[in-house]
């Protein structure tokens, strides 16, 4: 064990280096296996018939013509799936959500445009689409509810459209407002947008009678919980349901949840006795895959004469859409818990109305709750600066939690865990950001350009993220007789580079090249336990478990090398590039990990009274999440005529604790920043007054292209490694998106010289022109 503790000696290190990804070769050569590329013999194709009405009573569904169509095998409506319960949500302390779950096919009522009403199964995807067009659905329209800040309506007799109210508070709020020098109040809104991965959803299910196993192939963000959920819904044992992850065309929080379609393909594979494939089209994706974000906040802060916050009081309205999906009320819960951001706040109260509307159901999208809360909190800080007459930087300095106060316990909970800001040097981050962008020179430039008539301005936003959601993760590291290392994990990949990062961590702990490490994930048939990929947890939780397991394998290998091969004590040995060598004598005698693995083959090991296999399990447990942080600066140029906003410069700074692969961290930051920019300026799911979605193609749902995107300068700092895990890791997956809306809003305010002008995201040209016209 001493050798393990002292760690590898002369071995090449991989953690901290921007090594190329292990994932890339098949993806650049057209050999990616995305869901649409998976095909089984005799498979059927499923097509969903969706509601064209936002709210109504189902009068009749006539499938007779569809059933007669060429290639059509079956048509199902709610009557055919009565044994399947509505889709559950994750365990949560928030009570009373059950009645609002979504049935896999609409029963009696439809509640949003896009809701599955029937499904058609046919021999070919074109035939399935033809037959689906022939299903007649007659609906009696009912009044629609499209705003969460309007009074709730009726969901069903005895139940209104407000399934829950999230309440969090601490401190003496009334006292804070009584003692206030001034009160700042804002009414802020965030638009409805979402992850919109470039690959639509897709799943293929098949039932194997020889093993009595139901297989589901496709996106599986949380393979094990999804397996358990599907097993429960279909009345099977979890051991007889297996999920297989393939290549995933982007996750962003929306993919891999259990949606009606996932359950339907499974049920059909069981009942129809043939594999069943469903590939969503883009129009469906934009109205049926989870939406996110839409909230309206009425917030006020009590401040003292220097702009210090004494208390914050927020009431917000979360537009959940038509049903409560798998996340339950997690997004408004996180919004509420993360609202105070990096600031000292003696008293706090938030009331979040979790309300249903006749729109696509909502759930998480990258940075859930924090994109929203950071926009709100940072708008408030800007407003406080304007009220007190101090600089936007200064108001933050006065309110940021100090390094000396870390770890900082806030009497709030997020995702059912108590909030302890584990580490951070927020003021130090602010200094670094201002220095990197050249803030003072930037202010001078802006002043000069404004004097010359340009509408140019800079915005700053600070944020605290959360990552590494516990409570536990486990992996098994095994070296086989060829010396190949396998890390078996219940984590999942959504295309972010999980295999590379986990291989780097394993390589360093064990003493091998990272290219010798195979990372097996997204397979419920290989490992019984797993939490998947979400909440920026994989690098932190799975990485830590990998580190622990690999150190155990290392110790085991060295112990056997010492006793059987090297005639040396364990502490004199090291592992370099897969060979156990004497420390500082790489040219001396050595034994390979492959040889040790062979020596531990069952027969050989048992003969010596040893546990067979060069393998170990590693478990990592944590009670608390780790909280990374960062700051963004945006410089924008506003076209006063068109209301268009050009982002000239952008700095995204982030403290990641320890960057396992800086190139990948930077990739996560830039990629998520651009998604955040979409939500700040372009992307929004709009509806007409009847509840018909207006953005069902990529021509209507505007994402940034290479043209709109500025060069993003990335500053990765490692000032505050997390004390909560052995490597000091913090998550990076959501690092670049959180503060974008806030920074862009602040920059636009500055550019047009109207503090507090931006109260709603996205700041589309129309909205900005309205603001400018109001001022004229």
């Amino acid at each position: 064990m001493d050798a393990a503790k002292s760690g590898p000696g002369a071995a090449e290190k991989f953690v901290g280096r921007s090594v190329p990804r292990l994932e890339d070769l098949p993806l650049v050569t057209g050999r990616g296996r995305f869901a649409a590329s998976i095909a089984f013999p005799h498979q059927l194709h499923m097509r969903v018939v969706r509601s064209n009405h936002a709210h109504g009573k189902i009068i009749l569904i006539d499938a007779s013509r569809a059933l007669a169509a060429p290639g059509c095998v079956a048509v199902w409506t709610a009557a055919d799936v009565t044994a399947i319960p509505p889709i559950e949500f994750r365990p949560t302390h928030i009570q009373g959500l059950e009645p609002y779950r979504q049935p896999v096919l609409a029963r009696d009522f439809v509640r949003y445009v896009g809701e599955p009403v029937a499904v058609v199964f046919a021999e070919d995807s074109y035939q399935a689409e033809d037959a689906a067009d022939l299903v007649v659905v007659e609906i009696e329209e009912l009044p629609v509810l499209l705003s969460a800040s309007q009074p709730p309506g009726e969901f069903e007799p005895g139940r209104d459209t407000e399934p829950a109210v999230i309440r969090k508070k601490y401190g003496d709020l009334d006292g804070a407002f009584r003692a206030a020098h001034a009160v700042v109040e804002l009414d802020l809104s965030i638009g409805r947008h979402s992850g919109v991965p470039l690959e639509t959803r897709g799943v293929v299910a098949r039932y194997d009678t020889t093993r009595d196993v139901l297989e589901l192939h496709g996106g599986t963000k949380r393979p094990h919980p999804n397996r358990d959920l599907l097993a429960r819904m279909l009345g099977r044992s979890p051991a007889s349901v297996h999920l297989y992850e393939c290549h995933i065309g982007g996750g962003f929080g929306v993919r891999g949840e259990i949606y009606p379609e996932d359950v339907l393909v499974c049920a059909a594979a069981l009942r129809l006795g043939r594999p069943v494939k469903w590939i969503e089209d883009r129009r469906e994706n934009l109205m049926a895959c989870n939406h996110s974000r839409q909230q309206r906040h009425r917030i006020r802060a009590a401040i003292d004469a220097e702009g210090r916050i004494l208390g914050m009081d927020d009431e917000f309205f979360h537009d959940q859409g038509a049903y409560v999906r798998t996340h339950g009320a997690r997004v408004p819960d996180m919004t509420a818990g993360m609202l105070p951001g990096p600031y000292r706040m003696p008293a706090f109260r938030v009331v979040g109305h979790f309300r249903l509307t006749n729109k696509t159901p909502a759930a998480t999208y990258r940075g859930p709750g924090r994109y929203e809360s950071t926009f709100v909190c940072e708008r408030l800080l800007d407003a406080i600066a304007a009220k007190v007459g101090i600089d936007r930087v200064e108001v933050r300095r006065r309110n940021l939690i100090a390094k000396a106060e870390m770890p900082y316990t806030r009497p709030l909970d997020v995702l059912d865990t108590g909030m302890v800001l584990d580490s951070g040097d927020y003021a130090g981050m602010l200094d670094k950001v201002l220095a990197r962008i050249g803030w003072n020179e930037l202010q001078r430039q802006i002043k000069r350009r404004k004097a010359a008539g340009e509408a140019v301005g800079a915005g700053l936003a600070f944020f605290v993220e959360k990552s590494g959601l516990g409570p536990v993760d486990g992996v098994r590291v095994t070296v086989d007789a060829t010396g190949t290392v396998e890390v078996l994990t219940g984590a999942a990949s959504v295309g972010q580079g999980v295999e590379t990062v986990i291989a780097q961590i394993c390589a360093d702990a064990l003493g091998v090249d990272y290219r010798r490490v195979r990372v097996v994930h997204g397979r419920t048939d290989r490992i019984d336990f797993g939490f998947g990929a979400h909440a920026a947890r994989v690098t932190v939780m799975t990485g830590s478990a990998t580190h622990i397991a690999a150190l155990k394998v290392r110790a085991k290998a060295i112990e056997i090398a010492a006793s059987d091969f090297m005639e040396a004590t364990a502490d004199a040995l090291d592992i370099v590039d897969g060979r156990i060598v004497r420390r500082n004598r790489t040219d001396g005698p050595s034994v390979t990990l492959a040889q040790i693995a062979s020596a531990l083959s069952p027969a050989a090991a048992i003969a010596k009274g040893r546990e067979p296999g060069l393998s170990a399990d590693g478990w990592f447990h944590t009670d608390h999440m780790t909280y990374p942080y960062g700051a963004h600066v945006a410089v924008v140029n506003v076209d006063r005529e068109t209301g268009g906003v050009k982002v000239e410069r952008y700095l995204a700074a982030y403290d990641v604790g320890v960057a396992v692969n800086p190139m990948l961290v930077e990739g996560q930051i830039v990629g998520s920043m651009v998604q955040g920019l979409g939500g700040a300026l372009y992307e929004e799911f709009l509806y007409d007054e009847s509840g018909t979605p207006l953005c069902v193609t990529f021509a209507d749902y505007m994402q940034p292209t290479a043209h709109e995107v500025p060069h993003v300068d990335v500053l990765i700092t490692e000032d505050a490694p997390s004390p909560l895990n052995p490597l000091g890791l913090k998550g990076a997956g959501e690092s670049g998106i959180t503060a974008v809306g806030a920074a862009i809003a602040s920059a636009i305010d500055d550019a047009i010289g109207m503090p507090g002008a931006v109260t709603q995201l996205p700041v589309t040209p129309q909205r900005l022109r309205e603001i400018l016209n109001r001022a004229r």
Partner: protein
Amino acid sequence: MSDNKTDVILKVNGKEYAIRVEPRRTLADALRDQCGLTGTNSGCEHGVCGSCTVIVDGDPVRSCLMFAVQVQGRQIRTIEGLADGDKLHPLQRAFIEHHGLQCGFCTPGFLMLAASVLEREPDINDEDLVEVLSSNLCRCTGYQNIIKAVRAAAAEMRAR
């Protein structure tokens, strides 16, 4: 319904595929389902995202907006034909080196778009290059590394 399928010969990456398809079958679907070339991905099926970009007679086209029957006899190149055997195309290497991909779904489309542009216009200036690359969508990378990778490959291809 009677069989209203048509015989078509698709010439893809120098190889001929004799297929029989309905006239309404898109080139993207024919490549994937009839030719087994599943490297071409469909991201929107309405010609906006460019994931399905292939090269037809030297021009980048969106294979979701073309019918297979329209391409009879024309030279089609897909992602499967970009590398020279095991030797990667400079663009493929550059995408790996510069982390120009994350999930990889849009990557074949970007690679084929960039390949056709650099073949036609090896000295393309930066502004025009970004303009061309703005015709495809990527949801992971924020484009920065895609642009970097294409620039690097362009420089390498010019230097040859």
